[in-house]
């Protein structure tokens, strides 16, 4: 028996894909009145081990090699297939997730199942282990290739551009007070960094720091801007807002110190850990603020530990 790999990705695809997408629509069927003596020819010429028996697209039963062999061994005279077929057929519906097909194949040990349309009961096709494996691999390959292409293009940008020094700059705009959209920039930044070939742990650190900064802008300011400068050796992030400013930065840095309004606390933020988290994630952090004008936060994260060179302003 085939054991299916227990990789989470495959399992997710098993739930995402439907039987309909993987089944074989090339239906070979026989009529109930077809004689047993003709069955061998049908099975052999199509290289199949069993075939559904139908009348006007309705599944009546299944006849397989084993039934044929039993009939031959018994030496009985020729008869209609409907007399020898199994009528108690285990079927699948086209709208079931593929994982049901995988489970049923393992449970019954059959090689194939007829696939029916749920509403009409009409026979649409058959599904085998091979069909399932082919579909899963195809889907995995497509997803893998799409991400690979993006990643390849992005990660070679530093080698492709000829210059004494290359940096990439991208910007994100933060809308203040829009709690639902907070985190969109950090999410986009994280994906972009990963495509640029940044080490996943570093991308995660940057994303956490920027997410906290973004949240601060959303909570306290009307809006702000994130500018990210990616060099081959380091990432520099600048978050600027036009908020109320921080009167006492030292106090604001104290763990647990917060001036967040109650509604923010009730949403699981504003407990006075944000700036600390940013500091923890950054290799260096500078914060400047003018009350009534706004706050400017600079974060540096080294991407290649051995060759860090901060541009200190």
């Amino acid at each position, binding site marked *: 028996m085939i054991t299916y790999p227990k990789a989470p990705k495959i399992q997710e695809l098993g739930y995402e894909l439907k039987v309909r997408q993987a089944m074989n629509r090339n239906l070979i069927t026989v009529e109930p009145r077809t004689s047993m003596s003709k069955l061998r020819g049908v099975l052999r010429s199509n290289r199949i081990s069993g075939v559904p028996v139908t009348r006007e697209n309705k599944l009546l039963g299944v006849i397989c090699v084993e039934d044929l062999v039993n009939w031959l061994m018994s030496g009985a005279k020729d008869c209609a297939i409907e007399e020898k077929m199994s009528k108690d057929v285990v079927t699948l519906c086209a709208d079931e997730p593929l994982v049901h097909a995988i489970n049923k194949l393992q449970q019954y040990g059959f090689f194939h199942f007829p696939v029916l349309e749920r509403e009409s009961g009409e026979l649409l096709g058959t599904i085998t282990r091979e069909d399932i494996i082919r579909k899963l691999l195809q889907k995995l390959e497509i997803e893998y290739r799409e991400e690979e292409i993006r990643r390849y293009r992005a990660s070679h940008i530093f080698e492709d551009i000829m210059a004494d020094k290359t940096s990439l700059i991208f910007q994100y705009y933060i809308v203040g007070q829009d709690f639902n959209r907070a985190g969109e920039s950090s999410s986009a930044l994280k994906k972009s960094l990963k495509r640029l070939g940044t080490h996943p*742990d570093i991308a995660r650190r940057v994303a956490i720091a920027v997410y906290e900064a973004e949240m601060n802008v959303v909570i306290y300011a009307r809006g702000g801007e994130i500018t990210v400068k990616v060099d081959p050796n380091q990432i520099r992030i600048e978050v600027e807002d036009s908020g109320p400013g921080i009167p006492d930065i030292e106090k604001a840095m104290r763990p647990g110190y917060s001036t967040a309004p109650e509604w923010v606390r009730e949403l699981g933020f504003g*407990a006075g*850990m944000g700036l*600390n988290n940013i500091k923890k994630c950054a290799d260096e952090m500078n914060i400047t603020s003018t009350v009534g004008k706004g706050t400017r936060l600079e974060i540096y994260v080294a991407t290649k530990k051995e060759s860090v060179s901060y541009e200190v302003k």
Partner: protein
Amino acid sequence: MNLGKIRQILRAEVIVGSSPDREIEVCCACDLMSEVLSCVPTGSSCLLLTNLAHSQTIRTAEIAEIPVICFVRGRKPESQNIKLAKKNGLVLLSTYFSLYEASGRLYKEGMPGCSGSRVS
């Protein structure tokens, strides 16, 4: 502990995504997202138990790479946030137990916490 067992212990419903064989290494019970961001160890497969079912819970999981969230007290996020979770490949569960009860039950069955300390 695998997801199937976690679901069984918490009698949890699957909101989105499902892979019963997925291994979960640690559990974090928390409603403060900053704490989640700073506590969950990098590269660990973590389950987040929380009271909060809004967009930022999903974002936090995405940013901190937490593969599974289980909302307590039967809470469930709105459909747009379920979509966001799905897009990021997260698994969302919902249990009727309180945060206390859910934590207690999982710990009793051997689930480790983020600090990894344990007394039996």
